[in-house]
């Protein structure tokens, strides 16, 4: 007596489920150069590590004898696997099953996957490709229904529990777009993925004639901040996912793992001494500075196309994962814009959620000014960014690279904490910059002078003496001015202290998407 017969039947049924939408549908995908839902999982996770949940779930047709004749799977594949030997949960939309639209949805499966990740405290990767609901499903159902966000209690909770990564690999419309945005990191495939609340046919009824690329292409969404990053191939997307997860703990109840240090913590890049132009109006390459002070090759920028005056990304210092914020003077001189405010708020909350110490490289002339900036609600979004700065509990280290002006500049750290901070000799700060103000402030002297040009130069030289950051340091208003080449050794020291200070557990102000 054994259960051999049943086990064989299980295998037969599993085979049908693994057949997905059938050979023809799979061939069409293959011919168009797309991976299918199971190939995607295999390409993402460690070899042979995928263990499916719901591997028998589908709609069966039975023959006269009650034997399953065919079994059509639902449109969502769910399971657990490992990435770089660490456990994760994975979901993969199966587009070969009637386009992965609502009709093939297995009730409860999506929410159970989210609950699994949250309760097992495992990162969740969503591989997304699905259309929204369609009217045909209504006829099958024979009635309409009040929409509700099934499983969303877990989706929302997971933002404060486990790393969630969303990958857009085809159309992600309606709820698919929401599954993209509800993540800590999202990446989209250029040319193949399109993300929007409703597609071109519906939008046309508003009088907008647009292609799906024009409406929700990857580059548009990256610029709008709807998605963090854009890649050209599915393999690249999976590589980004693995890399993002490498900096993060498995959940908020753990700490970010240190990698084997690959770089000398005492390395001093000589270029840093000349990185900042002596002429204050000139720009420079902040990304090169970031790369020079972090462990070589460890910086992974997130959201480059959106809110560009602030650079955000993850990196390592002597192997310890850190969250890096840096100003980009090439975009609005590094000023905080409405867009960069939102980006900052989310990024700081991300760091706080997953206990990543923050390194902030500052060159901030203030908030962006002007009528457009006011209309964009810059002060409202800026206030939210400030709240994130002041609510963050993670260790925080500031390097004042150049400008620190106005409210935005003043918010480079919560000043009431121990100020782990140093400045470069190019540091330049105050409530109002000197430039442009001299002519009006010294108008009379200049008008009386025989040689106004020479006098102007004299006054400028005098003021520049006063604005020297050394004077600020002498008054202990700045903790130290350093040789820029010492930045990396000092940041590595910070990371070693910060490592001890990180506290595992949920935080009060977890990231909101």
């Amino acid at each position: 007596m054994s259960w051999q017969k049943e086990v064989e039947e299980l295998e037969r049924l599993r085979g049908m489920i693994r057949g997905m939408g059938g050979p023809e549908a799979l061939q069409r995908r293959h011919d168009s150069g797309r991976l299918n839902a199971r190939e995607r999982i295999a390409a993402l996770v460690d070899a042979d590590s995928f263990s499916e949940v719901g591997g028998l779930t589908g709609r069966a047709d039975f023959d006269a004898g009650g034997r399953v004749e065919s079994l059509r799977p639902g449109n969502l594949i769910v399971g657990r696997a490992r990435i770089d030997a660490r456990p994760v949960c994975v979901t993969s939309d199966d587009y070969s099953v009637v386009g992965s639209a609502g009709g093939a949805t297995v009730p409860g499966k999506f929410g159970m996957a989210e609950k699994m990740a949250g309760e097992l405290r495992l990162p969740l990767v969503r591989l997304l490709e699905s259309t929204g609901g369609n009217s045909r499903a209504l006829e099958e159902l024979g009635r309409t229904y009040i929409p509700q966000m099934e499983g969303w209690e877990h989706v929302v909770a997971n933002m404060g529990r486990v790393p969630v990564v969303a990958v857009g690999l085809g159309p992600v419309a309606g709820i698919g777009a929401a599954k993209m945005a509800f993540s800590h990191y999202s990446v989209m495939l250029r040319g193949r993925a399109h993300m929007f609340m409703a597609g071109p046919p519906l939008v046309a009824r508003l009088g907008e004639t647009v292609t799906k690329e024009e409406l929700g292409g990857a580059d548009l969404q990256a610029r709008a901040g709807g998605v963090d990053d854009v890649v050209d191939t599915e393999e690249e997307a999976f590589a980004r996912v693995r890399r993002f997860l490498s900096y993060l703990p498995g959940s908020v109840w753990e700490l970010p793992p240190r990698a084997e240090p690959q770089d000398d913590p005492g390395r001093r890049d000589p270029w840093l001494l000349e990185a900042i132009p002596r002429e204050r109006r000139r720009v420079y390459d902040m990304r090169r500075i970031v790369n020079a002070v972090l462990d070589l090759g460890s910086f992974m920028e997130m959201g480059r196309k959106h809110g560009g005056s602030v650079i955000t990304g993850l990196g390592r210092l002597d192997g310890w994962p850190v969250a890096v914020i840096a100003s980009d003077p090439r975009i609005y001189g590094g000023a905080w814009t409405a867009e960069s405010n939102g980006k900052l708020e989310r990024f700081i909350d991300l760091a706080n959620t997953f206990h990543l110490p923050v390194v902030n490289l500052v060159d901030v002339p203030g908030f962006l000014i002007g009528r457009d900036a006011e209309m964009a609600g810059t002060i409202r979004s800026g206030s939210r960014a400030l709240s994130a700065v002041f609510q963050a509990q993670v260790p925080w280290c500031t390097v004042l690279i150049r400008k620190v002006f106005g409210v935005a500049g003043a918010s480079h750290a919560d000043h009431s904490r121990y100020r782990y901070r140093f400045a470069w000799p190019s540091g330049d700060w105050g409530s109002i910059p000197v430039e442009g103000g001299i002519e009006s402030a010294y108008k009379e002297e200049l008008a009386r002078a025989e040689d106004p040009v020479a006098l102007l130069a004299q006054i400028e030289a005098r003021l520049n003496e006063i604005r020297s950051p050394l004077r600020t340091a002498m008054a202990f208003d700045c903790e130290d001015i350093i040789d820029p080449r010492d930045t990396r050794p000092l940041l590595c020291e910070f990371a070693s202290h910060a490592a001890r200070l990180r506290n595992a557990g949920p935080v009060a102000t977890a990231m909101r998407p």
Partner: protein
Amino acid sequence: MPRTPVPSPIKAMVWKIEVAIGDQVSEYDPLLILESMKTEIPVDAPCAGVIAEILVAEGDAVQEDQPLFLIETAS
């Protein structure tokens, strides 16, 4: 010959134009300097080619995405 527009990366004032019509430029050559938030922000050539049109003048206010130049490219 295709003409590639060079959009302004930000809303700003045009401070200095550094090229003339007919100039041959390489990718990353500075074409123009914008001024915003007391900072000089260079706009570099996105590709190699010849400056076919200059669409703004020094002192102009430009919007984000507004075309500044047309560059004629070989292919």
